[in-house]
């Protein structure tokens, strides 16, 4: 138990020291990462990119039925 606790503490310290001693360019890059992840996961995913099938149908069988509909009746032709 003591070994696990020490290992976790060492890993935590390793990351903490790494982040605190990070040079200026590293901090700038982390800022870009955080802004990017915010835009991707909060703005884009929530407001612009719903999973269409999950949102519109309650079960996998309904989703399958819908896609089968699309496969069978959709066509490039006008006839």
């Amino acid at each position: 138990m003591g070994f696990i606790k020490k290992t976790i503490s060492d890993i935590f310290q390793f990351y903490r020291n790494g982040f605190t001693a990070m040079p200026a360019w590293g901090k700038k890059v982390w800022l870009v990462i955080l802004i990017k992840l915010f835009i991707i996961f909060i703005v884009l995913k929530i407001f612009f990119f719903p999973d269409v099938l999950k949102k519109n149908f309650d079960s996998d069988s309904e989703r399958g039925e819908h896609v089968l509909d699309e496969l069978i009746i959709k066509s490039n032709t006008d006839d």
Partner: protein
Amino acid sequence: MIENIDLSLVDWSRAQFALTAIYHWLFVPLTLGLSFILVIMETKYVRTGSEKWKRTTKFWMKLFGINFAIGVSTGLILEFEFGTNWSNYSWFVGDIFGAPLAVEGIIAFFLESTFVAVMFFGWDKVSKRFHLVSTWLVAIGANLSALWILVANAWMENPVGMIFNPDTARNEMKSFWEVLFNPVAMDKFFHTITSGFVLASLFVTGISAWFILRNREREMAIKSIKVAAIFGAFASVVLIYTGDTSARTLADVQPVKFAAMEALYEGQRDAGLTAFGILTDRDEADDELDEKDIIASIEIPGLLSIMTNGKRDSYVTGIKDLVYGNEEMGIISAAEKIERGKIARQLLLDYREAKKRGDSQEIEELKKRFEDNNFQEQYFRYFGYSYINKPTDIVPNVPLLFYTFHVMVALGFLFLLLQVLAWFFAARGSLEKRKGFLWILILSIPLPYLASVLGWLVTEMGRQPWIIQDLMPVGIAVSSISTSTVQTTFWLFAALFTALLIAEVSIMTRQIKIGPKIEEE
């Protein structure tokens, strides 16, 4: 009953996917190649104990870190697009994509995320050898991540190892190994990672050339060029070899794409390889095909036949054979495939109607017929053709493919020449005097990015009209959403990715100008 496809929605969805994929890909290949260049440099440090190698490794590692951090997660947007814009496709591919992407996620998370931290935070905190092992694992992890994505992409080119379930409308994996060892996947993996190796080596030689011209860090620059050029030259040879094997595989599994890359309308024996050529409209051409002639060409007689089938008198299939059929060569026409595709779709419809009626005997009979090997091989494999209006619609944009393919190949050979010369001049100690060549190395930095994007254009545009070869055309794959939503997100992505690219270029150029002064920061 029949619903027409909104082509503007399809086009905008394609444009958006192309935009995000191309931008995402601008970040990836440098990570693939630079990670292995770091491995070589750090191995030299560990073996020699030289602080100069440590300093050199740390400098390139800094540029690797900037590129890695800014590029990471940009690929996730492609997955969002699958769920929103391409929901029919996402559902249809079923677990074929799920399994490789899940493996990719695990490997990427455990190998890259964990050991990247050791790479950057672990200098002087872990042993030299453990640090080197971490760098190795990051390089292997990054390249293995690419493997799983490419396996999924290869399945779209050559769908194997699965069976379509008519009850769920999903493809189910029959053999993981068949999907993994799909010949397209293997060719694609080695061709793609070696293209990343070449890109990274030209990146290193170009920046090192800049240092030499500025009369700064000359020793580090020469050392870096020696490592990168030899690595890049070997990678270029493998790149050219895997390009050749990829083309041979294409001739087998995507013959229309292969013929279009060579603008080969008429199939022929003793077919020559066009090293260079200009396409013009053909007189008395088949209007439907919009045929082109190759003029002002440099052609090597018989080489295309040799490269495709190993024999000079072997037959290379032309576009017309694939559109109109060629009985003598046993090639069935697109019209015949359209008929077979319609039979497959009708069976799917009949099965569905029988299920709605609850006619258990008919359900059983139809399902048995559907699962029959002969039906799968002779009919269902052409399922996507049932959506094709006319046979000539199976031909992609020939001029676009011809030029993109030939420019990419020419650049591949140029890269080999540049690497060999860079290594030769560096080994002889004459590199510093060759200012013109150093400038060429600097100006060559964007060229492998261009070649890489051209390669993806050949892959993706050459597969048109299919999203999954022969099974699903692009028009069927899109979700029924509004075009304006896709337009809005297209411009959002354009802004986001451009901002990321500007951030990357500005942070990176600043760090290059600062040079390897890591300890002082």
